[in-house]
């Protein structure tokens, strides 16, 4: 069995283990062992992948494997990874691991919660390892539907409304993707569903590409929080329980960017070049609008959700620039944003669990009461606004460098506009930190609160180590990514 198939298989086994678990201890044991196994496996995968590349294997996808599933439609269960997907798998494993620890104190319906959580991760891992359109789409939808129950049952606030809105909008997006996939498959002569083979055929007529490209791009763009289809994101993230927000903002939104890059642009390159300007405008709006919206929010989760809209908009913005530097930056940004937004949501969950409010007007002076959590919050904030040495800087620097390389006026102007988001981000992050962490605590109830427990520390420290690791030693990661981005970009440009 291929090592890649283990990634969706392990969460499946975890679901089985959870199903037969009888006590809370058993449930947590299953989760921790499974999540650690996934994390270990992801690190091993990175090593294996880098080793194979060092051995001089130059194929676009490594560790490939496939067997025929539905012959009449040429559907295969086909797996394979390149540098982009390896990075994404590592990210997902880290988030699943930390998400498990972040929901350590879950008290109602623990078993069901983790079963759905595992199903979500089956979908996520399956999506990143697939190279077959059908299988990929199937895993994509597998990752979407557990969200409804996870938010609807375990969420807070207007959870039923948010859960329904999120599910329906994302499913609407996936309806667009489905028709796009059919269009690509039949447009390419109905001989294969394998992404690489379709790209190699390169035979989809240009007028059909012009129809399918916007459809597929918007379809994935809904999940990537493309303006104006981002409205599910603030409500959904604000209502979701901590671990789900982490996984959703950290990983699921990356499915959108990954899909836009791997399917919409890679398979429909001519239309991508022709029509990219429309989406560049939309993503620029996402970037700036998300940042401005974050400035005026008063709920901690809403601030972070709008900040996610802004940062994920930057991912789509960068891949549309269609050069290797910007696209590498996009993947780095996916990684970086995934890690820091997960850290943010974890910390917000922990603070909310203590103070029972997320309203920044009611919080102040937390630094004295819970120094560990507060310091970590500052680190997350600094990563978010792009402080050198942390991951956000590396990613955004690469993106804007790449975006500015295009020397026509349009690309440069939008790059400058998008750059302003960095400043706006600094505004809302610093304002937030100043407001809730410093000053004197006005609420006497809050003075009695305690700092992080060990399980919370595990979650937070793992994430901070990853963020700092990416920020301090970015080269091994960006090299791995850029050599995989290169063939995709050159395919799009030719």
């Amino acid at each position, binding site marked *: 069995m291929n090592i890649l198939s283990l990634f969706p298989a392990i969460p499946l086994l975890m679901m089985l283990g959870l199903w037969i678990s009888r006590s809370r201890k058993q449930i947590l044991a299953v989760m921790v062992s499974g999540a650690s196994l996934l994390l270990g496996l992801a690190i091993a995968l990175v090593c294996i992948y880098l080793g194979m590349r060092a051995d001089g294997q130059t194929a676009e996808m490594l560790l490939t494997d496939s067997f025929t599933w539905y*012959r009449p439609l040429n559907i295969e269960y086909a797996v394979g990874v390149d540098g982009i997907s390896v990075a994404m798998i590592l990210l997902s494993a880290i988030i699943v691991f930390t998400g498990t620890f972040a929901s350590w104190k879950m008290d109602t319906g623990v078993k069901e919660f983790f079963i759905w959580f595992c199903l979500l991760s089956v979908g996520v891992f399956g999506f990143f390892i697939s190279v077959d359109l059908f299988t990929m789409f199937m895993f994509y939808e597998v990752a979407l539907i557990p969200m409804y*129950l996870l938010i609807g049952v375990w969420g807070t606030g207007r*959870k039923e409304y948010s859960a329904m809105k999120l599910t329906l909008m994302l499913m609407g997006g996936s309806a667009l993707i489905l028709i796009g996939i059919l269009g690509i498959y039949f447009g390419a002569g109905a001989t294969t569903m394998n992404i690489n083979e379709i790209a190699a055929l390169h035979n989809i007529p240009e007028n059909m590409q012009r129809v399918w490209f916007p459809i597929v791009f918007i379809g994935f763009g809904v999940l990537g929080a493309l303006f104006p289809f981002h409205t599910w994101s603030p409500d959904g993230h604000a209502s979701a329980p901590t671990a789900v927000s982490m996984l959703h903002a950290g990983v699921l939104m990356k499915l959108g960017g990954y899909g836009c890059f791997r399917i919409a642009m890679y398979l429909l390159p001519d239309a991508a070049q022709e029509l990219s300007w429309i989406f560049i405008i939309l993503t620029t709006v996402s970037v700036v609008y998300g940042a401005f919206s974050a400035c005026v929010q008063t709920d901690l989760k809403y601030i972070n959700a709008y900040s996610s809209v802004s940062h994920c908009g930057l991912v789509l913005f960068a891949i549309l620039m269609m050069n290797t530097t910007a696209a590498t930056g996009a993947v780095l940004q996916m990684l970086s944003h995934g890690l820091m937004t997960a850290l943010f949501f974890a910390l917000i969950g922990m603070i909310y669990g203590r103070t029972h409010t997320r309203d920044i007007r009611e919080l102040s002076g937390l630094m004295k009461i819970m120094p560990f959590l507060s310091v970590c919050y500052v680190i997350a904030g600094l990563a978010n606004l792009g402080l050198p040495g942390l991951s956000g800087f590396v990613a955004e620097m690469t993106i804007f460098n790449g975006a500015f390389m295009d020397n026509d006026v349009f690309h440069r102007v939008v790059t400058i506009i998008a750059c302003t988001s960095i400043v706006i981000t600094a505004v809302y992050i610093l304002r937030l930190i100043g407001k809730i962490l410093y000053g004197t605590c006005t609420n006497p109830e809050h003075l009695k609160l305690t700092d992080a427990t060990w399980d919370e520390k595990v979650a937070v420290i793992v994430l901070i180590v990853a963020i700092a690791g990416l920020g301090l030693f970015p080269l091994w990661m960006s090299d791995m990514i850029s050599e995989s981005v290169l063939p995709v970009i050159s395919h799009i440009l030719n």
Partner: protein
Amino acid sequence: MDYSAIFTYMYTEIALIGVTVAALLYDLIAGRRGRKYFHGIMCGVLLLFIGATVFPYHKETAEIFGGMYIYSPISGVVKSLLAIGTLLVFLQADKWLGQKDTEIKRGEFYVLTLSTLIGMDFMISAGHFMMFFIGLELASVPMACLVAFDKYKHNSAEAGAKFILSALFASGLMLYGISFLYGTTGTLYFDDMTAGIDGSALQILSLVFFFTGLGFKLSLVPFHLWTADTYEGAPTAVTSYLSVVSKAAAAFALMVILIKVFAPVVEYWQALLYIVIILSITIGNLFALRQKNLKRFMAFSSISQAGYIMLGVISGTPYGMTTLIFYVLVYMAANLAAFGVINTVEQNSGGKVGMDDYNGLYKTNPKLAVIMTLALFSLAGIPPFAGFFSKFFIFAAAFEQGFHVLVFIALINTVISLYYYLLIVKAMFINRNDAPVATFRSDGSTRISLLLCLAGIIILGLASCIFDGINLYTFGI
């Protein structure tokens, strides 16, 4: 004529007639004590029957009675699917049949249901319009008796009357259409008729009339007006039979006749179907949004599902036929699972079928709530459940023939349908209820049928061999 051919190729119908007559006789001679075993015996016999006929014996197409009856392997496959659906309905009906006022009529239920099944089998295998019509009527008239089975209940009797009146009207229209066909082509044999079809106005009219007759059975919009009332009034076991088995037979027969007989006027019936599909899917969905009674809700859901089934018909290809049969099979598993839950909740809670009654079901009956959820997910087309695969394939079949816009509209509608399916999931898992349905243990045979349906929902999609198996037989249509 060599009469042995009758037994060689008509084995399904002959065996079914044997079973039906035996059930009738057993009902006569078995007293109160014998009736206790009736359920077990019927399910066992039906299981044996399915085991014996599930794989077609012959790989070739054959005509008997001079072309009145046509045997083809694919029709054998469809017949065994219908029998499986019937078995599942039988399994779910036990508790209901065991009630005081229906216990005495238990035998009638089996005999009537099997008669409709025989009618459908003949309808599927017909090679002549007369044969087809007799099969259709044999499937409709006992169905009306079944709908009115709880005859002392006002709702059931009313539903029966509504059903038989609209069924007769539809049959009348269809006969009228067939008479036009006979008048313009001079024959009623499917094979000979094709040559005479030239697209004259009269023939197009007869196509429409013929389509109306089957559209009624499939409850396609605009022939759906009987559906909600009948589904609500009929006993739940009958409703599930009506929504699954009867639809499956009609869909298959419709596709065969459209392809075989009306091949020369393909653009006309494709245009007709195009409109009917959009109407069925959209109107079914929109009306389902506002239903508070689960049986009515399922009625509208099944109207829109019938629209999706027609996507396989409109493609008019062998691959479309495969997807149609596969879709029907998956739909059968999911719909019967949903109806199984509705039925057992209704029987064990004193007749609760309102959507509000399902609030908090997960707290008291978690297994039933989970089965219902998976069934609804499958109906909505969520992976990894079978409904996702069948929807994808049937979309691909229509897409392949260039119906891009149609597929797009159907896809948008899946989002609407997801909304109302999620409403039930929400009721069961999220909504609070001070007086939820009390915890109960369903009877054994219902549990078996639910398990079978659940296995179907999960396995049918993931195991590609079933789809491939059906695909093997659809060549040569």
